[in-house]
Structure formats: structure tokens, C-alpha cells
């Protein structure tokens, strides 16, 4: 006598189909369609219209500003992340958990507030405003403000990737190297760095994606001077509010491509080097 046996830890086929349908519909409606609409709108007047919007001088200047901003902000946060992870993961000291919490703080601050705090320090009515004006230094509505706001919103990425990873790895290997006479720097370069390189790349990747795509914080400090202080996301906003939809979506599609490349490399790293990047990837 044969009896149909269903594994008790598996759902009924009808439930499987229903839940899968709900999940796929949700993903298609909320993730796939917004992505598709970006490219579809960008190409709605043909490829050349999209290309024209991208080689427009204002767009090129926005692309340049975005690249410069990321080129300053990402390395600084990289150095900070390495330094914080070395201190926190390789040493025991009091206040360690408070320090770790404080490093995560920028993630729980609204992007707009992230820009606002620098206006309150460096703006004309800010703490240092009058002093800066007397010395003719511009921070708000100029590149330094944009870079500062970008550093703030991407502050935790590298550090929070490296701290759990380096804590897990312990300090035995470094102690062995130092006891054999290696200097601090060569211990770091030859022992620590090879152990953390994929995790580091992972953190830098996410940091860079956010740095190039940040909108709210940068919007507050930029002043929207077209061709001067507009980054790519801000240029998208300007074009969109100007009813230049093809142009807005053309520049947006560059940013969407950046997001897709980021996701592809991220998935590759997670798939290929799962054990060598930290277990904690939550933002």
C-alpha cells in the first residue's frame, strides 16, 4: 500500500504557490518596475536624446562633481574604517561598545538632518559662519560642504564591515608577527590586510554607491548652483522639476547602472567570498 507522504516541514503545494506568487508580485511591482521605468523613460525619445542629455555641459559638470566628491569622501572613510577597526577589534578597552554605537549613529539620522548639522556649523548664521566669511572661505554651498555631508552619510560603511570581521579573526596572527620582529606597519600590510581584503572591498563598494547617490544631505548643503554645485542626483532633480523628463531619466539611468554594477559585484563577493566578509551586512 502506498500512501502519499508529505514532509511535515514543507508547506502544502497550494501555500507554496500562493506565497511564491505574492513574493514575486511584490518584487516585480516594487523593485523591477521602478528600475525598468528609469531606462524606459530615458530611451523614450531614442538613444541619441538620452546621450545628448548626458553630454550636456551641466550634466558633465554634475558627473565630475560626483566623482570628485566620492574620490575624497570614500578614501577618508576607508582610512577611518581601518583605524577604528584596528583600535576596536585588536584591543580591549573600556567604552568600546559605546564607541561602536556612536560610529553607527549617522545611519539613524535623516539625510536632511545630516546636511542641516553642517549648515548649523558652517552656514552664514552658523557657529563658524562669520569667521569663515571674514576669511573668505566657502564651505556651505561649495565643494567642502558637499564632501562633508557625503562623508557623514557614508561614515559607518567601512568601519561596520571591518569591526565584526577583524574581531572574529582575533589577534593571534598579528601577535605572532610582532613577536617575530615585524613592525606594526608590515604586520598590518602583510598579515591583517590579506585577511580582510574582501571585506574591505565590500565596505568600500557600499560606501561608494551611497557617496555617489546621496541626495538629501547634499541637497541641503549644495545651494543648487547649476553647473557648479549640482551633483548627479541633484541634477536629476533639477531636470525633473524642469519637466525635462528624458534628460532626468537619462542621468538617472547612469546612477541606476551604477547601482546595478554595485549589486552585481556585491552578490559576487557574497557568493565567492562569503566566509571572508563579515557575517553582518545589515545597514
Amino acid at each position, binding site marked *: 500500500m502506498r500512501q502519499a507522504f508529505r514532509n511535515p516541514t514543507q508547506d502544502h503545494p497550494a501555500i507554496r504557490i500562493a506565497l511564491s506568487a505574492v513574493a514575486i508580485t*511584490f518584487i516585480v511591482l516594487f523593485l523591477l518596475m521602478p528600475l525598468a521605468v528609469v531606462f524606459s523613460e530615458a530611451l523614450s525619445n531614442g538613444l541619441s536624446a538620452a546621450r545628448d542629455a548626458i553630454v550636456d555641459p551641466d550634466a558633465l559638470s554634475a558627473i565630475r562633481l560626483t566623482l570628485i566628491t566620492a574620490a575624497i569622501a570614500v578614501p577618508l572613510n576607508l582610512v577611518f574604517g581601518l583605524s577604528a577597526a584596528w583600535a576596536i577589534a585588536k584591543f580591549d578597552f573600556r567604552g568600546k561598545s559605546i564607541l561602536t554605537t556612536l560610529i553607527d549613529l549617522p545611519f539613524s539620522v535623516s539625510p536632511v538632518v545630516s546636511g542641516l548639522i553642517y549648515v548649523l556649523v558652517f552656514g552664514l548664521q552658523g557657529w563658524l559662519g562669520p569667521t569663515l566669511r571674514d576669511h573668505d572661505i566657502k564651505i556651505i554651498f561649495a565643494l567642502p560642504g558637499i564632501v562633508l555631508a557625503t562623508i557623514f552619510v557614508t561614515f559607518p560603511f567601512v568601519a561596520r564591515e571591518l569591526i565584526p570581521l577583524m574581531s572574529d579573526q582575533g589577534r593571534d596572527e598579528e601577535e605572532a608577527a610582532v613577536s617575530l620582529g615585524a613592525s606594526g606597519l608590515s604586520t598590518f600590510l602583510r598579515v591583517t590586510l590579506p585577511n580582510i581584503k574582501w571585506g574591505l572591498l565590500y565596505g568600500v563598494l557600499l560606501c561608494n554607491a551611497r557617496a555617489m547617490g546621496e541626495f538629501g544631505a547634499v541637497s541641503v548643503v549644495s545651494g543648487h548652483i547649476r553647473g557648479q554645485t549640482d551633483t548627479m542626483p541633484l541634477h536629476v532633480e533639477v531636470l525633473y522639476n524642469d519637466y525635462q523628463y528624458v534628460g532626468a531619466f537619462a542621468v538617472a539611468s547612469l546612477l541606476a547602472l551604477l547601482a546595478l554594477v554595485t549589486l552585481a559585484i556585491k552578490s559576487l563577493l557574497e557568493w565567492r567570498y562569503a566566509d571572508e566578509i563579515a557575517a553582518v551586512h545589515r545597514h
Partner: protein
Amino acid sequence: MNSVAIPSRFARWRNPSALPGFGLTLGFTLFYLSAIVLIPLAALLLRPWTLGWDGFWSVIAQPRTLAALKLSFGAAAIAAAINAVLGLIVAWVLTRYRIPGGRLIDALVDLPFALPTAVAGIALSSLYASNGWLGAIAAQFGLKIAYTPIGVVIALIFIGLPFVVRTLQPVLADMSLESEEAAATLGASRAQTFFRVILPALAPSLITGTAMAFARAVGEYGSVIFIAGNLPMVSEIAPLLIVIKLQEYDYAAAAAIGVVMLTISFVMLLALNALQSWAAARQ
């Protein structure tokens, strides 16, 4: 030797270590943290009091401010609740079932982290406008999504989606099937097993993921402002009101709204933390 025999004051707050670089890395970490995060945040916390308590209160008690705060927190709560349910289903389907394109869907879940918020904003806006792909369908049923509070909720669902899925996935993957088998052996139906065995085990991470989605949604700016329509008292979010106050050079009012947002988020996160440890302790 003396230095070893007598614990110095220094040694009391940190354990001795053979590794070099503690002073340098911790020093740089603290300097960078203070310069980028702590001092500017202090500027935010101190600024509203230049208005005095009455001035502070009059900014917050304005109907327009209250309406914006209510919308930001209310829409974030609704979006987080929807994400809790749909995120659980997506995480369940991705870890428990084999579906075609599962790996691609899994990679796509991170899109809201990687896609710049301004790009998401214009994409959602054109998707749900009354002549957009989805907005046109909704319009046939007499439902207006873009430029209403429903649009705000849609954008916040998009932005919060990965938090619940990514928090639940590792927990679901690590969950052993034995307790489910035991429940089935003892005669529990699949539904009973889910609600009495699986869901309680998932509760702490479900709460964490939902809280993270909520916290992110409260401060969200870029993806919301394009689809919201930004009608004062109706679809104007609190971060946008901060931007408006800044454009009016009313720094203190902008800071006051920022402080209220930070405080409410902070209190809610504390409450959710307490709830989470309660859920974990009940296990």
C-alpha cells in the same frame, strides 16, 4: 619591573597588548568621529534653544509642523507594518522554496540600498502618476496614488523593503527543522506549527528588521518628495519642512524640527529594543 608590577591608571581602562598602534588609531578614530559626527550633532541639539522654550514650542505646535510630523511617522509606521508581512513572505520564499530566478530576486532585494533615492523617487513618481504604468491601472479604480499620502507610503515601502528581508534571511536559514518536525509529530497542523513554533522564534529579528525599516522611513527624503506632491498639511513630510525652513533662513526652526524627529525616533528605537529583548527572553 615597576611598570609591570604596579598597574598604572592607564592599564585600568585597557588591557595590555603586544600589538602596536592603539594610541594612533584610537586617537584618529575619536578625532574623526568628533569632527564629523559629534560636534555637528551638538550644533543641532543646541541650536533650537536660541528660540527659548516658548519659541521652540511655537515652531513645533504649528499645525503645519504637526501635520508633517504626523505624516512622516504615520506613513513610516504603515509602510513598516506592510514590509513586516511582505518581507516575511519574501524571506520565507527565498530561503525555503526553490523558485525560478531565486538568486536574481535575492540580489535584487538590495536595490533600494543601492539605487540613489532621487532615482527611486522619480521612477516611483512616473510609475504611479495617473498616466504611469501602475498609476493608470489604479486610476481606473478611482484610486489616486502619486501626489497623495498613499504615494508617500509606497515610497517608504520601497525604501524599507530590504531591512526586514535581510534581517530575517540568516535566521530562517539557520533555523533547524527539528522543532518543526517535533511539532508535526505531536499532531500540530502546519499553521499551528508556523504560528506557535516558527513565528515566535522569528519574532526578535522580525521586530528588529521592522524597526530598522521604520527608522529609515521616518527620515527618508529623496524617494518621497517626488511622489508626495508636497501639499502643506496633506502630503508634506517633516524632512521637507526642514528644507523649507532652511530656505527661509530660519535655522532655529529647522533645527527644532530636526531635534524633535531625532528625539521621537530615538525613544521609539529604545522602546522597540525593549520589546525585542522581551520577545527574545520569552523564548
